[in-house]
């Protein structure tokens, strides 16, 4: 009877601990969100969206940084998405029996979790050094390199979910293979593609490390893609580390803005895929 009680006690202890572990995980999420809201909400004003980043000690906003972030994210997505989708198509549709496909899949999964600062170094070596100066193009390229593995992965997964009967039916009608892929498979997997792109945008828009040595930063409004460009993450980094209260407050505002956008994208992406799963 003693042994029985000991086993029961141990079970109860472990299960209680696992409950507290979960509570702790959720607590961190709430703590971070709470900090962002309590510090950042007061900085979210109209000025934030209409004024450029100020010199220390004066009022301003984050307009140039928001513009830079949106622009570079858009370019990165525009470059990275087609590459990722085509590469994913190769893995899902054209690689049957090939030896190289598992290698590509393996390397892609490693690129997916590789440190993003390495991507920054790579683009610095390849683009910034060659051009001789930091530029928004370099920043966008660094982000595009991060987009590719994310899109590739979801594309392949989603194409594999398309039932083979659809492909066979189309082939039986004499449809050329590229049309089967583009007009049948892509259409069936469209929702998944959208999810993949949303996840990629969410991932990229918070990335700081790859922009540090590529797009650098710019205190003024600039729409020149060949020059350094302001962007939210680097501005947050610079302003938060500064001793000026105005800058720190702007950093919190930017942090709140970026987190809300990213969390919404994440939730939307998840909602889109869960709807799909239930349909099947």
């Amino acid at each position, binding site marked *: 009877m003693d042994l029985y009680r000991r086993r029961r006690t141990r079970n109860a202890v472990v299960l209680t601990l696992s409950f507290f572990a979960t509570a702790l995980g959720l607590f961190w*999420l709430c703590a971070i969100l709470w900090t962002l809201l309590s510090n950042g909400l007061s900085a979210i004003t109209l000025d934030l969206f209409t004024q450029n980043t100020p010199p220390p000690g004066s009022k301003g906003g984050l307009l140039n940084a928001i513009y830079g972030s949106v622009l570079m994210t858009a370019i990165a997505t525009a470059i990275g998405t087609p590459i990722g989708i085509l590469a994913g198509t190769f893995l899902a549709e054209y690689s049957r029996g090939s030896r190289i496909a598992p290698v590509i899949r393996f390397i892609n999964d490693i690129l997916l979790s590789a440190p993003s600062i*390495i991507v920054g170094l790579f683009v610095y070596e390849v683009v910034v050094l060659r051009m001789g100066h930091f530029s928004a193009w370099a920043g966008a390229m660094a982000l595009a390199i991060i987009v590719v593995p994310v899109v590739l992965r979801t594309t392949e997964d989603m194409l594999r979910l398309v039932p083979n009967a659809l492909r066979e039916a189309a082939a039986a009608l004499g449809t050329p293979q590229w049309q089967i892929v583009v007009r049948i498979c892509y259409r069936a997997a469209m929702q998944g593609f959208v999810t993949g792109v949303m996840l990629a945008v969410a991932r990229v828009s918070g990335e700081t490390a790859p922009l540090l040595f590529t797009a650098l930063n710019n205190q003024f409004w600039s729409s020149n893609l060949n020059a350094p460009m302001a962007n939210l993450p680097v501005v947050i980094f610079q302003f938060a580390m500064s001793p000026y209260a105005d800058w720190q407050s702007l950093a919190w505002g930017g942090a709140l803005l970026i987190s809300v956008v990213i969390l919404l994208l994440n939730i939307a992406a998840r909602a889109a895929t869960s709807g799909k799963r239930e349909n099947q």
Partner: protein
Amino acid sequence: MTTQIVGGRKQLQAEYLRWASRQRVLDAAFRGAATFFGLFVLLLLGGVIFALVDGAWPALSHFGFDFVTSESWNPVTEKFGARAPIYGTVVTSLIAMAIGLPISFGIAIFITELCPGWLRRPIGTAIELLAGIPSIIYGIWGLFVFAPFLQSTLQPFLIATLGEVPLIGGLFAGPPLGIGVFTAGLILSIMVLPFITAVMRDVFMTVPPMLKESAYGLGCTTWEVVWRVVLPYTRVGVVGGVMLGLGRALGETMAVTFVIGNAHRIQNSILAPGTTISAALANEFTEAVGDLYLSSLIALGFILFVITFFVLSFAKLLLLRLERRSGS
């Protein structure tokens, strides 16, 4: 199908042949593009390795093997060694694993064994959202909220208790600064939670219900089922998940840069400031003057890349092995 039949059979046939040959060209083009971009991924990795080696070469050839073993980091005399950043990277990641692993395990048990079905998805999603928060947010939260909190509570407590214990006392010596190696490790432990938990939860779900139910039928408690049945069955996947988390922790940049203190020194106490490879890069790269300085920083990046590449490859191989087993 919309083609009007005006001419005879011959004309129709010719039209079909034209169409077919055009489709053949388009087919080849599309296939070629897909294959090219598939190979592009390999090219990308090759390019990264080449660029890093190329940039790191001046420093590596100048310092030789000393680069890895030397602790000095002096931009004025141009003497650079990677020992302190490597040490910081490894120690912060180990702290992150030591704390993050049991918590992730607990969360995975809770989600798979305890949690009522309707709560599973919301809790799972909430934990996954931790992975969505950008690392810079962890950084400013860590610097302004978490570090002061640790400075006034946990760190004085650790110094007063564990700091007095012989042998390990040195690890917890010194003043409570708030920022430092320990704080960086703690923040990393929060950041790796979602990655390890997600893998553990997924592999725990692959255990055949028959096995678990048999164990329950013999009168096992939930903990005994998890420890004796689920864990041995999924060991490979669990190790893979842990390695995946480790890979993330090793390369994490912004969060660490904010809270580690950026000191190129190896100190006994884990409460003291230190640096990691990625933090050194983020802090010094744009301000580095001199080719040797820049090259040394790139060499640091190369070392980081090699370490994470091996850790992540190991993780991936283990997870692939599990996938193959459950597939067959």
